[in-house]
C-alpha cells in the first residue's frame, strides 16, 4: 500500500474560476519526491523566458512533501514554488505550522494557482468541496486580522494568506500561514497578490496513510532518540530558539553588522536568545509534529514597545532588524518582527533593505528628505520601524525599496550598488561571508539566490557539528577556502532532501539526522524504496533541474554565481577573519566539478543522462 502521498492535486484557474482535481504523476513522485522537486518539475513544463512573474501567466504552486502531516519529526512543511519577481529566477519558500498537514488531510498533495481573478478572492478547501469566495471584505486587511476573520467564518480551518505587502506587489512580500509561519523568499506574496488571491483556507478530515506502520515506529524511535540526544535539537533550540546562534556567531565574527560591513556587534548579548529567554519570552512552543520546540512566544509588557506580542523573533529576524541595522533593542526588534508578520513581509529581505538605506543615509547618498524625513542612522530603531511600514505601503523611499535591493540600487544610482547586499537579486541573510568561506559559496550557488539554507554549512565549519560525518583532515578552518566545496556538497544531501520530503531543515541543520535515517522514514511511510544512494541522486537531480530552469528558462548566466564586492574585495574589519576576503572563485571551480557541471557552470550533457533528466537535455536550446 502506498502511504504519505494523497495522490491528488488541485489545479485552480483564477481567470476562469475553474477548479479541477487531478492525479499526481507517478514518475514525478519517483523522480522528485515532493516540495521543491515537484515545483521545479512543474515550472520546467510551464515557464519560458517571457513569463512575467507578476503576470497571470506565472503560476504559484502550494506544495507539501510526502511526510507532511505524518508523525515523522517536524512533518509539517508546506512549500511555495513560482518564478520570482525579485530575482527573475526560480522562487521557492518553505513554511511550517499547521496549514501544510491540513492540506494533506483535505486530500491534496499540492495546489497549482494560475491566471488572475478579476476581483479579490480566497480559495476555500473543505475536503472535496473547493470553492472560490469573495475576499472584498478582507482586501487591505493585515494578515493577522485576515486570519482571525476567516477562522470565524470557517471554524477549525487553517489559514494561509498575504498581508498588505503582497497586495501592493512589494517584492519582499511573503506568504504566511498559521499567524506566524512564513514562506516565500523572493516575493511569493507579491505573486499571490498579483493574482488577486488573498488567502487559502483549508479544513481536512481525511487520513494520510502509512505503508509500514511497525517499520515506521521502529525508525521513529531511533530518530527521536537522535533528536533528544543531540545538543542542537535537545538543548540549544528548545532553550533559546534559533536566536541561540547570536552569541556564537558574534564570537566567530560571523554576525552581519551594519549592512554587512563587519561580522561583530557590540550589542550582540542584548539581542541574544539567552537575553530573550530572560526578558520577553512567555512560552516555548512547537509547529505541528515537532519535537525540537524552537518556537518562542514573546510579549513586551512595558515601555515604548509595550503590547507587542508574536511568535519569534527568529535568529534571521534578530540579525536583520538587529545588528544589520545596528539595533541592540530586542523589544524594537520584536516590534518589527510582529509588524512584518502582520504586513506579510520577509523579515530577512526587509531588514536588508532598511540596513541598505541606513548605510546610504550615513554615506550621504540619501538625504533625510529622501528617507521620508527619517533620521535614518544605524541604530535608530524608531526610524527602522517606520520605514518597515512605508515599505509595505510603498510610501516614498518605501516605494523604491519595494522593488528589492538590486533594483532599488539601480534606481538610486550614485554608487549605491556597492551597498546592495544580494545574490541574483535576493537579499542576503544572517551569515557574514568572509568569516565563513563555505557559506559564501552556498549563497553564491543557491538556486533561489542569496540563500543561507541550501545547507547551512557554518554548522560544521564554525560550530563543529558533523565532524564524524564529514571527513576532513584536521579542524575545518572557516576562513580558508580549501575543501569547502566538499563540505557544502556533503551537507547538501540531507539539507536539500528536507526541501522535498516535508520535514523541517532544523532536523538536519546541525547534522542531527542522517541521510540514512531520512531515507528510512521516507520508505516506511510511502512504501517506495529509498536508500542513501537514491536520496543523493534525487537531490542532485533536483538541484540540476532547478539550475537548468534558471539557465535555460529564465536566462540566468553562471557569472551571477557571485557575491557583493563587499565580501570579495573589502577585507573584514574585525573578528577572526580580519583582513580576509571571500575567495569564491577557488571554491566555485571545485563546486562545479563536484556537481557534474562544466567550468563555466553549465551542467554537462552526460550529467543529464546519469540523473535521468533526458527531458531537459531534449529541450536544451528550445
Amino acid at each position: 500500500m502506498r502511504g504519505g502521498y494523497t495522490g491528488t492535486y488541485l489545479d485552480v484557474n483564477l481567470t476562469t474560476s475553474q477548479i479541477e482535481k487531478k492525479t499526481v504523476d507517478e514518475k514525478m513522485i519517483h523522480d522528485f519526491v515532493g516540495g521543491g522537486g515537484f515545483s521545479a518539475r512543474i515550472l520546467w513544463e510551464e515557464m519560458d523566458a517571457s513569463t512575467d512573474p507578476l503576470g497571470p501567466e506565472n503560476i504559484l504552486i502550494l506544495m507539501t512533501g510526502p511526510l507532511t502531516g505524518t508523525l515523522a519529526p517536524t512533518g509539517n512543511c508546506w512549500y511555495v514554488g513560482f518564478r520570482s519577481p525579485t530575482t527573475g529566477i526560480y522562487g521557492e519558500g518553505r513554511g511550517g505550522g499547521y496549514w501544510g498537514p491540513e492540506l494533506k488531510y483535505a486530500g491534496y498533495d499540492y495546489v497549482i494557482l494560475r491566471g488572475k481573478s478579476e476581483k479579490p478572492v480566497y480559495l476555500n478547501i473543505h475536503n472535496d468541496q473547493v470553492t472560490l469566495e469573495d475576499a472584498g471584505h478582507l482586501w487591505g486587511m493585515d494578515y493577522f486580522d485576515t486570519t482571525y476573520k476567516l477562522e470565524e467564518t470557517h471554524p477549525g480551518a487553517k489559514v494561509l494568506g498575504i498581508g498588505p505587502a503582497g497586495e501592493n506587489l512589494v517584492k519582499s512580500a511573503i506568504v504566511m500561514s498559521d499567524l506566524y509561519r512564513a514562506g516565500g523568499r523572493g516575493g511569493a506574496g507579491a505573486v499571490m497578490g498579483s493574482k488577486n488571491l488573498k488567502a487559502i483556507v483549508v479544513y481536512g478530515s481525511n487520513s494520510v496513510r502509512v505503508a509500514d506502520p511497525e517499520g515506521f515506529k521502529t525508525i521513529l524511535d531511533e530518530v527521536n532518540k537522535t533528536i533528544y540526544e543531540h545538543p542542537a535539537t535537545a538543548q540549544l533550540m528548545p532553550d533559546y530558539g534559533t536566536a541561540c546562534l547570536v552569541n556564537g556567531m558574534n564570537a566567530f565574527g560571523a554576525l552581519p553588522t551594519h549592512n554587512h560591513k563587519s561580522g561583530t556587534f557590540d550589542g550582540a548579548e542584548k539581542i541574544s536568545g539567552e537575553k530573550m529567554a530572560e526578558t520577553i519570552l512567555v512560552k516555548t512552543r512547537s509547529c505541528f509534529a515537532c519535537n525540537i520546540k524552537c518556537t518562542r512566544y514573546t510579549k513586551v509588557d512595558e515601555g515604548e514597545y509595550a503590547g507587542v506580542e508574536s511568535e519569534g523573533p527568529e535568529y534571521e529576524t534578530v540579525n536583520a532588524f538587529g545588528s544589520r541595522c545596528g539595533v541592540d533593542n530586542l523589544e524594537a526588534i520584536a516590534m518589527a518582527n510582529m509588524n512584518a508578520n502582520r504586513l506579510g513581509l520577509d523579515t530577512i529581505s526587509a531588514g536588508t533593505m532598511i540596513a541598505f538605506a541606513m548605510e546610504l543615509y550615513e554615506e550621504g547618498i540619501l538625504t533625510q528628505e529622501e528617507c521620508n524625513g527619517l533620521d535614518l542612522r544605524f541604530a535608530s530603531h524608531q526610524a527602522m520601524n517606520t520605514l518597515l511600514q512605508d515599505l509595505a505601503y510603498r510610501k516614498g523611499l518605501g516605494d523604491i525599496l519595494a522593488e528589492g535591493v538590486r533594483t532599488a540600487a539601480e534606481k538610486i544610482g550614485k554608487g549605491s550598488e556597492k551597498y546592495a547586499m544580494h545574490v541574483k537579486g535576493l537579499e542576503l541573510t544572517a551569515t557574514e561571508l568572509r568569516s565563513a568561506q563555505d557559506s559564501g559559496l552556498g549563497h553564491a550557488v543557491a538556486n533561489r539566490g542569496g540563500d543561507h539554507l541550501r545547507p547551512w554549512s557554518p554548522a560544521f565549519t564554525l560550530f563543529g557539528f558533523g565532524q564524524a560525518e564529514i571527513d576532513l583532515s584536521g579542524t575545518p578552518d572557516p576562513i580558508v577556502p580549501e575543501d569547502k566545496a566538499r563540505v557544502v556538497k556533503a551537507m547538501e544531501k540531507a539539507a536539500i532532501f528536507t526541501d522535498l520530503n516535508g520535514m523541517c531543515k532544523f532536523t538536519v541543520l546541525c547534522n542531527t539526522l542522517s541521510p540514512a535515517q531520512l531515507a528510512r522514514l521516507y520508505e516506511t511511510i510511502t512504501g517506495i524504496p529509498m536508500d542513501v544512494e537514491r536520496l543523493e541522486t534525487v537531490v542532485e537531480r533536483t538541484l540540476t533541474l532547478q539550475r537548468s530552469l534558471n539557465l535555460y528558462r529564465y536566462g540566468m548566466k553562471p557569472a551571477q554565481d557571485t557575491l557583493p564586492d563587499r565580501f570579495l574585495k573589502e577585507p573584514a574589519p574585525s573578528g577572526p577573519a580580519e583582513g580576509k576576503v571571500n575567495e569564491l572563485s577557488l571554491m566555485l571551480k571545485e563546486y562545479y566539478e563536484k556537481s557534474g557541471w562544466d567550468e563555466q557552470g553549465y551542467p554537462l550533457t552526460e550529467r543529464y543522462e546519469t540523473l535521468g533528466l533526458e527531458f531537459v537535455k531534449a529541450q536544451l536550446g528550445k
Partner: protein
Amino acid sequence: MSPTDEQQKRSGKRMAEKMVGLKEKCVGCRMCELACSLNLENVFNPKLSRVQVERGGNALDLPHICFQCDDAPCAEACPVDAITMNEATGIWQIAKDTCIGCGVCVDACPYGAMFMEPKGSYALKCEVCEGQYCKTICPNKALEYQA
C-alpha cells in the same frame, strides 16, 4: 476551571485509570494526535485521535483528553446507553456498534474531551489503551497516566 484543575479536585473520589493532559507543559505540537491515530487506526489523522489539542490566543496549548470523570455527563446524555463504565478499571467505554453518531455526548462533555469520528458515524474518546503511545511520543511530558 481547566480540566486539569478539575481532574485534580476529583481524583480522590475514585481510582480510575486515566490519562491527564497538562496545559502547563503542552507546546502544541499535536504529536499525541498523530500517535493516537497511528496506534489505534494505523493512519495519520488528528480527527480520528482520542486526544485533541486546542491551540488558541495568548499562547494557549491545551490537550483535551477524557479523565474518566465520576458523573460522566456524556454517559448520562447518551440516548442509546452506548457509554458504559468498566467496573474493574473505572474507564468509560463507547460501544461503537451501539453508538448512533448523534453527537449529544460531544455537546454534553464539559471538558471538550469527546469527539466525533469525521464521517459522523460514532463518537471517540480516550479509553486508556494499552500502548499509551500518545504519552510515549509527547516531547514535553504533557500527558500523564494516573491510576
